[in-house]
């Protein structure tokens, strides 16, 4: 069972959920490049300019761990990264859990992603434009750890550790992505977990995802916002248990 975090945070996102599956499954959580304890020197702006580069890393982790018939649990953009990975290696992940997924954030004709391209440009510009604020505001763990490198590896000391430059690239890859055409190609059994009042992945987007994936089911959680794995972990755990 492989847990993948979304944009804006690292694997600590899963800390309330992962322990519940440790007795029944072999559980692995990881940090994408630029997040948590990953090595920022391995960053390649070209490779990571699209979600495909991140999916490549998931497949490499799967191969390294020799995962077969595994369960991929992806939050937010990771749901789509997991989709790309399982399309590429259907035997690696036979079950896909998508928590608050969105295949496209920008509106497109009849499709309502919730954002205009101007909104997204503004977001990306604000991240590019204001790296100091970004790093001070959203990566205080990095700032704190600069003085105390010995804490860098300690999970309890770091929350949502991000490299500001890489995070900015991840934001671009995430919010300009369009994975709609990939959804029908998913052969894995798929569970979509959806919250209410999620401005990033609204309810109708969750329904769209369910409708496009052949073998899929949607569960509506009694939670609001975009991060049920943090705000309503018990519901997330129960829904995943039911499904697997």
């Amino acid at each position: 069972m492989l847990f993948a975090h979304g944009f804006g945070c690292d694997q600590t996102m899963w800390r309330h959920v992962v322990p519940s599956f440790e007795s029944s499954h072999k559980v692995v959580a990881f940090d994408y490049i630029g997040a948590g304890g990953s090595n920022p020197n391995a960053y390649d702006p070209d490779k990571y300019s699209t979600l495909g580069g991140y999916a490549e890393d998931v497949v490499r982790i799967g191969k390294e761990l020799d995962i077969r018939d595994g369960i991929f649990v992806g939050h937010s953009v990771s749901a789509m990264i997991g989709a790309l990975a399982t399309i590429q290696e259907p035997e690696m992940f036979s079950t896909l859990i998508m928590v608050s997924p969105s295949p496209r954030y920008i509106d497109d004709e009849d499709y309502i992603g919730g954002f205009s391209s101007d909104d997204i440009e503004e977001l990306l510009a604000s991240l590019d434009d204001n790296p100091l604020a970004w790093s001070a505001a959203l990566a205080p763990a990095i700032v704190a750890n600069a003085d105390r490198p010995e804490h860098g590896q300690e999970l309890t000391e770091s929350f949502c550790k991000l490299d500001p430059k890489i995070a900015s690239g991840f934001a671009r890859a995430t919010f300009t992505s369009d994975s709609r055409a990939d959804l029908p190609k998913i052969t894995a059994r798929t569970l979509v977990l959806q919250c209410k009042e999620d401005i990033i992945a609204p309810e109708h987007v969750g329904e769209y995802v369910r409708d496009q994936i052949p073998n899929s089911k949607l569960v509506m959680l009694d939670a609001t916002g975009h991060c049920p794995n943090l705000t309503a972990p018990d519901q997330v755990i129960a829904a995943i248990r039911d499904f697997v």
Partner: protein
Amino acid sequence: MPDRPELSPAPPSFQNTPCGHLVHDDRGIILETNNRLHGWLAMSASELDGTPVIGLLSKASRVVYETSFVPMLALNGKVDGASLDLIAKDGSKVPVLLSAETTGSGKECRTTIAFLLADARRAFERDLAKARAEAEAQLLLTQREGKLREQFVAILGHDLLNPVASISSSVGMLARESLSETGQEIVELTQGSVKRMSLLIHNILDFARNRLGGGIELNMSDEAVLETEVRQVVNELRAANTDREIQLDISLQGKVRCDGPRVGQLLSNLLGNALTYGDPEHPIFVSLNTTDEGAFELGVRNAGAPIPPSAMERLFDPFMRSTNHGDQMGLGLGLYIASEIAKAHGGKLEVSSNDDWTTFTLVVPPGGIDGQTDSGQGETAIGGA
């Protein structure tokens, strides 16, 4: 002593604190806001209370809020100094710094947020980023220009070598003719000048090559070549400075591996300095010897005013010239090149200077030049040029 004011048992009012203030519940619904925030947003308490806090944010800030702010708050219980944009009633952006803290759990969970206006700081950060980008661009340009200049110097130096060589051989031929005493003197002076010119050009070429990333190339030879080179350099400088006394003492035991002509170039530089800066009333002592440990040393010692301590530090930096001496001799590359030649040999150039003597000594430890080959392939890259 004045009466101590009674502590109010009621919760403190934030209505008039000089920062924006807001409390929301476990579902992000606003429970309380203060005057400062109302003023910034041009909205009243009744318009704000009961609405979702995310509605106060710009669209870009909502994404950051949901993907980073909320997770950090959930994981850590607090967030310090996040930078987001609020949206006022008229749609204008209000850049703020905010810190938040969460208390209680479940339905009783309350989050308190304090806001500070950040437009000036945001502008300052943008200016900083812009200044940095400009400085980086300027640096790149300067580096590119510097490289071009060094290439130019390298080419110029190389092109100068040929005419200098031809003057040198012409004067050499002239010296073999029967000349008047004055003619003989002129030929000797010219030979000295040509030698010095050639050394300067070689120094410049080595400097440019170093800067362009090449190293000082060594063609290893033995002690016989070294001795010949040292004698030749001393004799040349004696001939060009007949009014000066240069004493030479050679005592080599066993084998020495080095690039003879390069060590000759080093000696030329050291001896040139000694002639320029040393006291002309005293002889200059040149010694070449091996030590019991198998190292070899080449020393040049002169009497005269000591090198001031302030100059010591940067003595081997390129383009360092004595400031207390009417030195019209060179570019200040001599000691730099000499020390680079020492480094290329795995050795070093030591200096000591007191009221009596100034001594420069090349020390090459045994095995200091391991890994070098006779073919000249063993190029030593020199850093820090």
